[in-house]
């Protein structure tokens, strides 16, 4: 391979969004999205509720399809259903309640191979067990291997969900408000964990959050979803786009305040 070829592979964005629109009937949710993301970036998605940031994440995940336009993953059209290219952690219901912590993570290895049941035997099982234990150690769950999810706290469940997703070695990791239901102290611990894993495993992450501070703290890049065009007579006529694409560390106080005011406007009647 020539130097130029290697360079061009390295420059190929892992995600490329090409004029993507999403509408349900007459309601336009997202419009004119054109953006690309390089390997290793940590993108946080913020916006008011109903702004389409979760719809966008679901399009990356494959559970929602764009009405117009294309999404490319590693230069190829993204498959129209979830697969092992994309890992996901939801706010809840992300782990299998009938499996123990260890089985939950080992299931990832079972699902990787083809076959009718996804059960593992012999050397493969031993190997999966070892890998699962290792990743559970990394997320700090090694003391709870034989517990069922209902015996875990909310934070521990999310650690488990992350371990499960990471063992599948996805090209991109999607986080849909993963810490929204956690207490502030636990949330800070989870932030450290996610940053540590992102650095160690060189992950590409997309994370939806409604917390602007969290978005700035975690992301290398922060996208704000909002409507660019407005029609007072027909509010659903125009969808949201990405109004800000900010690199972390380059944001001054006044920009932050401006965004914070836009995302969490103080109601006239309460002010």
């Amino acid at each position, binding site marked *: 391979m020539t130097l130029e070829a290697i360079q061009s592979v390295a420059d190929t964005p892992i995600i490329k969004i090409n004029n993507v629109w999403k509408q349900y009937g007459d309601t336009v949710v997202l419009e004119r999205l054109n953006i690309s993301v390089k390997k290793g970036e940590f993108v946080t998605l913020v916006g008011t509720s109903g702004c389409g940031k979760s719809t966008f994440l679901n399009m990356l995940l494959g559970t929602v399809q764009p009405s117009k336009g294309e999404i490319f993953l590693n230069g190829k059209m993204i498959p129209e259903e979830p*697969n092992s290219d994309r890992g996901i952690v939801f706010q809840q219901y992300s782990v299998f309640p*009938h499996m123990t912590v260890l089985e939950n993570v080992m*299931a990832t290895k079972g*699902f990787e191979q083809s076959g*009718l049941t*996804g059960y593992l035997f012999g050397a493969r099982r031993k190997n999966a067990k070892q890998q699962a234990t290792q990743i559970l150690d990394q997320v700090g769950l090694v003391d709870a291997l034989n517990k*069922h999810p209902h015996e875990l706290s909310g934070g521990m469940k999310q650690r488990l969900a992350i371990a499960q997703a990471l063992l599948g070695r996805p090209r991109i990791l999607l986080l849909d408000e993963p810490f929204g239901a956690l207490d502030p102290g636990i949330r800070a611990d989870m932030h450290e964990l996610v940053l540590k894993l992102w650095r160690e495993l060189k992950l590409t992450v997309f994370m939806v959050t409604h917390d602007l501070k969290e978005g700035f703290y975690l992301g290398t890049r922060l996208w704000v979803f909002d409507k660019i065009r407005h029609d007072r007579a027909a509010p659903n006529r125009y969808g949201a786009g990405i109004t800000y694409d900010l690199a972390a560390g380059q944001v001054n106080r006044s920009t932050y305040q401006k965004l914070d005011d836009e995302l969490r406007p103080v109601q006239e009647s309460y002010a």
Partner: protein
Amino acid sequence: MPLSETDKRPMSTFTSKDRPMKKLINQVPNNSLKIVLGVLPFAFLIILYMVASDARLEINPSDKLLPSFSKISDGLSRMALEPSKRSGEYLFWQDTASSLTRLGIGVSIAAAIGLVIGLISGAVPLFAAWLSPLLTVVSLIPPLALLPILFIVFGLGELSKVVLIAIGMTPFIGRDIQRRTQEIPTEQLVKAQTLGANTSQIIVRVLLPQILPKLIDAVRLSLGAGWLFLIAAEAVASTDGLGYRIFLVRRYMAMDVILPYVAWITLLAFLIDIALRELNRTFFPWHEQGAK
């Protein structure tokens, strides 16, 4: 404003009796009260029976309608502890074994078919589109109306009774399992797919284990109907069985046999229900905690 009588009292004289009465919906019985309240209706019914039975026997000592408890225990021991003069069998146990065998086979068939249909149609939309309308229509057919057809097709032997139980219970179990399968959060299905799972792996590893405790619940709920179909089929055409016996001795107004048989059927139903509940608790401890 002048102080009322209570306001003038020193605080130390207040006792728990001065506390205002709680609303009825907030009054929870303690354990002993719970037992007393629960036993009360049974005791009342037994006493009512004894009084009514005594009153009738007073007027006519050979009255058969409400036999005394000693008559009932005689009837029961005649059936359970003495071999029948005609066949040499202990009829009570013979009847119990026959009925439980029929019920067991019928319920097992219904559970197996209901599980497969419900699970697959709950998991695969194409199957749901194909099977749901049929399942709905079949579930609307009154199973007892099919009994004559079953007798014509399968004869008067064991098969038609087992088939009646199976036909009666399968649509209920199938629809219930379908609904339960669809209730499993989509997040889990998406998650499994992002880990690389294919359709059959999702059904076998994610859905099936979570549906098994629901299957036991569905069987518990539909067992009442199962008993109904069993007794009806036995009453119409049989040579033994609990339902056969009560309908047989009805001709002689043998309440001393019918009453203990009904009590026995009730006890069996109760014990089976408890056993299934314990089965669920033992094998699926994560089930009652809810899927989160």
